[in-house]
């Protein structure tokens, strides 16, 4: 029987199968950041262990960093302490560290791909659930806990039961104004937040074949929001073109050798999946969420459903709508918005800022909206300037902040105030995710742009793009 893409990469990395237990999986690349690594380093120290392959781990500061005045000392003493711990730990163990202000610094899942660290057929882990982003390259990439960070530091392996396999095929062509984020929110709305728990997903079909690497990253990023360990897309010419020439990409003979492996990375025709789902891409609308988990999304012109028509139990559903201040049957379009956040490892890449700029060009920021535009990395920030996007943004009344996770998890000062509504291009609308009491509506950069210029939930297709 044929193998799936997932099987091929997984099986290549199994050091050992434990009888009645998980597989010992070798990890090619390990990404760490300041929040989930300090306790792992402490564990390492107390065991007297060393870092087995320091060159396979890459560190960045992103979760807990300010997005203004990055050249000044970090004001919050606890945050500063975490940043210092990362700096000291990486120095002690010889790990590459792109700290605050470094020209390659940025969100961990943005800098991996843009520096060629992320490669097809690799196993990649990080103490952050959106590690699934890297699956866009045909890698097996998933989030881990701090105990596992310690395992990878000390042994370059973790113990994992092999997940089941699901293939999600989206055929057809996306309509104008529909972005990869909408595809992700649509799929999650169909599967619910737990619909893919226990599975690793492969995305296939013409919609993904035509999608850019940035778009594939957005969709793979959100895989975790339906419970999946990760998502992946088979590498193709789009993938190879993206990787070529980046800092850590293979060069010369190594490239040719890598290509031989990479070309094998696709599911065989007779490969079996434990579950297969197919959707029609042409049916997808710009999406928006109305509730407190990413599965609570609808087409922007649809009404909020009634309790009978959702998967949640009534009490859970009511609690969610109560938190959001919404009612069953209401229309999303026209709802007043206080904040707009464009950024995160979901939609903080250059393509997202291009999309945002394409809509706001020649328009003006709405007066009563606060807009935070946060590039995913310094590389993205530079691209925004170089492509003239910053000029468009400035003319429309927007400013750009400095790279970091920012309001995606609101660990720094970028918190949406209690009770306020934010259209966010990030990945989670959980209660309090963007600040205690904050109310988050997840959407694409285009829907965010439409909200930024109108101050309301607005279907971007009703605004002419310049």
């Amino acid at each position, binding site marked *: 029987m044929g193998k799936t893409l997932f099987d091929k990469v997984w099986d290549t990395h199994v050091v*050992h199968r434990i*009888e009645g237990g998980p597989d010992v999986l070798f990890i090619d690349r390990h990404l760490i950041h300041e929040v*989930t690594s300090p306790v792992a380093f402490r564990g390492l120290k107390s065991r007297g262990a060393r870092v087995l392959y320091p060159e396979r781990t890459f560190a960045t500061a992103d979760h807990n960093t300010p997005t203004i005045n990055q050249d000044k000392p970090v004001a919050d003493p606890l945050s500063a302490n975490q940043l210092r711990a990362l700096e000291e730990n990486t120095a002690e163990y010889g790990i590459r560290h792109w700290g605050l202000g470094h020209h390659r610094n940025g969100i961990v899942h943005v800098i991996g791909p843009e520096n060629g660290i992320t490669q097809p057929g690799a196993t990649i882990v990080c103490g952050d659930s959106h590690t699934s982003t890297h699956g866009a390259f045909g890698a097996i990439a998933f989030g881990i806990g701090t105990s596992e960070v310690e395992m990878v530091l000390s042994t370059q392996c973790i*113990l994992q039961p092999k997940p089941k396999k699901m293939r999600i095929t989206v055929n057809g062509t996306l309509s104008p104004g529909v972005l990869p984020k909408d595809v992700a929110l649509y799929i999650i709305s169909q599967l619910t937040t737990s619909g893919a728990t226990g599975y690793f997903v492969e995305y296939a079909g013409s919609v993904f074949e035509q999608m850019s690497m940035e778009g594939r990253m957005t969709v793979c990023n959100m895989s975790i929001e339906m*419970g999946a360990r990760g998502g992946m897309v088979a590498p193709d010419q789009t993938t190879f073109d993206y990787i070529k020439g980046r800092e850590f990409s293979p060069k010369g003979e190594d490239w040719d050798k890598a290509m031989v492996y990479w070309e094998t990375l696709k599911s065989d025709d007779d490969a079996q999946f434990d579950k297969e789902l197919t959707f029609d891409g042409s049916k997808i609308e710009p999406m928006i969420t109305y509730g407190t988990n990413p599965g609570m999304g609808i087409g922007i012109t649809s009404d909020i459903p009634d309790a009978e028509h959702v998967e949640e*139990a009534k009490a859970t559903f009511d609690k969610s709508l109560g938190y959001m201040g919404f009612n069953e049957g209401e229309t999303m379009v026209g709802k007043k918005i206080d904040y707009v956040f464009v950024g995160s490892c979901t939609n903080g890449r250059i393509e997202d800022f291009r999309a945002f700029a394409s809509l706001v060009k020649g328009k003006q920021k709405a007066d009563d909206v606060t807009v935070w535009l946060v590039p995913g990395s310094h590389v993205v920030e530079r691209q925004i300037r170089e492509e003239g996007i910053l000029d468009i943004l400035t003319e429309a009344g927007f400013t750009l902040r400095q790279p970091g996770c920012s309001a995606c998890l609101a660990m720094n000062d970028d918190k949406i105030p209690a009770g306020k509504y934010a259209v966010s291009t990030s990945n989670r609308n959980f209660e309090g995710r963007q600040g205690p009491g904050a109310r988050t509506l997840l959407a694409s950069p285009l829907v965010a742009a439409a909200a930024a210029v109108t101050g309301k939930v607005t279907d971007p297709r009703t605004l002419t793009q310049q």
Partner: protein
Amino acid sequence: MAYDSFNILTSTAVPLPIENVDTDQIIPARFLKATERKGFGDNLFRDWRYNPDNTPKADFVLNDPTYTGKILVGGKNFGSGSSREHAAWAIYDYGFRCVISSFFADIFRNNCLNIGVLPVQVSAAFLEKIFDAVYADPTTELEVNLPEQTVTILSTGEKESFNITSYKKSNMMNGFDDIDYLLNIKSDIQEFAKTLPL
């Protein structure tokens, strides 16, 4: 030994019949700034448990003295969202040793097993029975028997078995963690690394 070993736990339970309890609720991001594993229990369910002025919310179950114990019983899809192990630490640190639900998110389940909190997945019907029994009488004890892989509502004698891999079961029963295991096979790992395509 990384944590206390787990064999048979007999305890009253704290009911939290909400679905999709995500790890941002279990421990909000702003409490993740520590560099040591200390004090996370104080902020377990912080925003459900306390008002913005830090006064306790009377209607939240952890603030209700009626319900106590080492077992937390949650609704379906418990622990979704962020991979933060801090969520499992907060649960352990608060004093829970076991979480029962009809469905767990993957990373959370792994994190729990790695730090000595036993995630016990039961059927939706049995979960209802537990909630009913605990609400009918908050002194109802549950017996979580890891060697037998069963959970029993002691007041009614109703019992259900649960799954756990034999590897994780023996780790939990002995208080061993995966790192001990992996460090023991380090030379195999180094040999293996030489054979990789990348």
